[in-house]
């Protein structure tokens, strides 16, 4: 059934359909609508889950870790400073191999105080062992949430579903909400591989001295490396039931493209608008939207970009002293290719600043004039 739904509520609906059993969260703009709706579902009985109110995001994740260790489906949502506060426990969740699912609404970190869209918060957590999936539309958010549970439970790794602050979290779009029966078919009840067992008491997550620790970290990496294969299976099963598919990356007009824009999130929509104009002028341009950032889908990206002349990466983030984070990943993706394209790095749209069609024209023009990319990322849309 299609409903006009706020992006945040696409998350809430998905959590309800996934029959999460424990939800623990602490409110923070722009994430609050997600758990606000979920707390109402818990209160009105439409979701049979325990909503644990906590005093901080650190405790929210700790609650999810406890509940997931007990073997139930869990959910939390956060943003910006809240996610940063969770950092320690993000490592714990993946190290303990718990299939926790989180919705992460991309928001800038202060100071200066800023509640708007920015990718710095989620990308700061790239090394915590969480799978990261970036979304562009309300429908993709809902679908990805459902896929996230199945994926997490398959590979025993936590998943962060990421959506842009306001541009997606607070925007209303028609969203097809699947019926419960179909969702139950896609996502049967959780059968945990790790759970506390009163009959056979065990302690989990305790000390692992040098003789053991390294193998456990290797195990996480092995599991991460298997994610793409399992994600493909999950998407196939999902498509079979619901008829929709996204892929770890979404190329648009890339087959014959000489220049390909790369980005994640909602700015991909604006970019597609821009390249239609450019194509009308005869430029061979395409767009590659990244959905999966961890694990990084190197092979998919390489295959898509290998024949392009220029790759134009848009980062709504900055790793200070190094530049755009997506651009760095792209460079390491392509370095192994014999005939790799030039990779141009642009930073724009930080702290909620709009990215317009003209900004993409500006980036494209820059790459046409330049002989080769600068060492540093180029900032687009600065006020000076």
């Amino acid at each position, binding site marked *: 059934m299609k409903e006009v739904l706020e992006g945040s509520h696409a998350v809430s609906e998905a959590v309800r359909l996934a029959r999460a059993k424990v939800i623990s969260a602490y409110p923070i703009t722009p994430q609050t609508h997600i758990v606000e709706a979920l707390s109402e579902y818990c209160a009105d009985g439409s979701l049979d889950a325990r909503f644990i109110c906590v005093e901080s995001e650190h405790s929210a994740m700790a609650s999810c870790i406890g509940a997931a260790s007990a073997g139930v489906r869990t959910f939390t949502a956060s943003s910006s400073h809240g996610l940063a506060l969770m950092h320690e426990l993000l490592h714990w969740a993946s190290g303990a191999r718990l299939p926790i699912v989180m919705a992460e609404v991309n928001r800038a970190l202060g100071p200066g105080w800023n509640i708007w869209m920015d990718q710095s918060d989620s990308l700061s957590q790239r090394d915590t062992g969480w799978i990261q999936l970036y979304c562009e539309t309300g429908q993709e958010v809902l679908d990805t949430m459902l896929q996230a549970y199945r994926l997490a439970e398959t590979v025993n790794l936590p998943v962060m579903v990421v959506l842009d602050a306001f541009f997606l979290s607070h925007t209303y779009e028609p969203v097809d909400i699947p019926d419960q029966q179909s969702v139950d078919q896609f996502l049967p009840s959780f059968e945990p*591989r790790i759970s506390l067992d009163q009959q056979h008491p065990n302690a989990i997550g*305790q*000390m692992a001295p040098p003789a053991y620790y390294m193998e456990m970290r*290797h195990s996480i990496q092995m*599991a991460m490396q298997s994610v793409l294969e399992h994600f493909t299976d999950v998407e196939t099963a999902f498509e079979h039931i619901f008829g929709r598919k996204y892929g770890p990356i979404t190329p648009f007009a890339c087959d014959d493209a000489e220049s390909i824009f790369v980005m994640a999130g909602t700015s991909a929509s604006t970019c597609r608008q821009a390249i239609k104009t450019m194509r009308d002028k005869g430029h061979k341009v395409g767009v590659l939207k990244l959905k999966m950032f961890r694990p990084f889908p190197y092979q998919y990206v390489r295959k898509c970009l290998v024949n392009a002349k220029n790759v134009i990466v848009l980062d709504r983030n900055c790793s200070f002293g190094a530049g755009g984070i997506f651009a760095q990943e792209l460079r390491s993706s392509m370095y192994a290719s014999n005939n790799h394209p030039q990779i141009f790095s642009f930073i724009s749209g930080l702290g909620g600043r709009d990215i317009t069609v003209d900004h993409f024209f500006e980036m494209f023009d820059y790459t046409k004039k330049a002989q080769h990319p600068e060492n540093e990322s180029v900032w687009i849309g600065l006020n000076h």
Partner: protein
Amino acid sequence: MNQSIQTQSPNNVSLLISQSRTNTLGNKTGTWRFVRPKYQEKTAPCSNACPLGIDIAKVEMYASRKDYPKALETILMENPLPAICGRVCFHPCESACNRQFLDQSVGIHHIERYIGNWGCNNKQSQINYPEFNGAQIGIIGAGPAGLSVAYFARRLGYRCDIFEKSNMSGGLLRSGIPAYRLPDHIIKDELERLNDDGIQFKYNQSISMIHLESLKNYHALFLCCGDTCPISLKIPGENDAIDGLNLLGQIRNHEAPLIEGRVAVIGGGNTAIDVARSLLRLGAQPIIVYRRSRNEMPAHPHEIDAALDEGIELRECFSPIAIEKDKNYKQVSLQKMKPGEKSNAGRQSYIPDGNRRETIQVNHVVSAIGAEMDIMWHNDQWEFTMSHCKMKRNKDLPIFWCGDLTTSEKTVTHALASGKQAVIALDILRNHNDVDINTICHQCQVGNGPALSFDIYSQGQRTQRDNNKIVPFEQINTAYFPNIPAVQENRNACLNSFDEVIIDFDESQVIEEASRCFNCGICNDCDTCRIFCPEMAIQWDQDNRHILMDYCKGCGICIAECPRDAMHLEVEP
């Protein structure tokens, strides 16, 4: 540390985590400890404020669980007359209640009253008095103090003879308190608690000093005859004033003279209020005349409020200086008063405000400025004095002055406390010696006193407590107590009958109100300590809560979490 690794490979996903199936019993975290928690019950501020030292926190705990027999038993350990005290006590417990700092004090007197009523209606809960101990005491006066002496003495095995000048027991309960505050049937029912072969009432026996010689065969005598002589106004025409205390007794016995029209009631104590409210119910228009301001009135504030709510006029800062009688009326000349210096005790004195005078014309004047003891009981030489009783020996016979003869505050509750204190003192004298009195009484002290606990004296459960420690509000973990307003009392608005004004709480109100109690300083088995113990070192089996010292690491979380300060940390010995 024991180490085992779990490897599972469903669908070929690598899964390796640290896991141990060894239990933690081998990890004796108790060796880390340098402080240890201890269950240590303390005194609630309400108990400390109660002249009788009732274990109120525990009473409320039982009441909230609908365990009325235990609630009653707990009260009766310290107070023989809960149905009466629940009505007439000025409840200093509620002024001390820690809950007032969160929202409102617990309505302790309503609960005591309900439990008292329950006791009156469930006679199987009567006291099982012990065997006689061979000693017999004589008690002069069957008012609250005398009844209290008889009750506690009988509980210690004494035979008691009570000499009462009238033909009924109860004293001021019957003659000094109006029925709208304390109905006859409550007095009758509650005094049945004293029905026992070991307590003999000898009515119509007026005992004076000269009769004491004939009572020398008793092992002790207790003078509980109260203040029987009205204080005179010492103004011209005072003989035309009616004695208020006597009038209250007459009204109760339906023997009062016809009093109509405007009546000046002189005085600011509880008797003045009782007289005024009684006269109102008889159809008169009372006017309370008091020489100081309302703030200085010795009557209890809620009684003053009730009188004013009922429409009684108060002329404050007026002192009567003469009563003149003419054919139909009495003219009362009043001197306007103004604040003077404060006394050493901090009480505001009042002095005449120049020559400002007024005269009020009334039909009757009632003097209700209090009473004093009969001069024959006057004595200056004591063997010892305590807060609520004094003792001297006549040859070898100990004679105790009790109740209004000695207490600073003349209330039913203080009179009952006096009886208890005197009986404990006598028992110590008989079983130990004079010098032990202070030591033993100190051990029986509730909080910082002066109330003594009969439970502690009888080596009951309260001996296990740190009785001198009073729980301050800061020690209450208010995270466990959401704001809940107190249950409101209902009143009978009828002003032309002597029906009880304040209506009994029903059971649901009692449970709701008793559940508001923090139960300061006592363990009510809330189980919070056990739930929070990170080492699972707190065990609760067979109603016995204890700490496994092999595992308690002394973190103190149980103490921090305990909602009611029933635990404390002590340095490891």
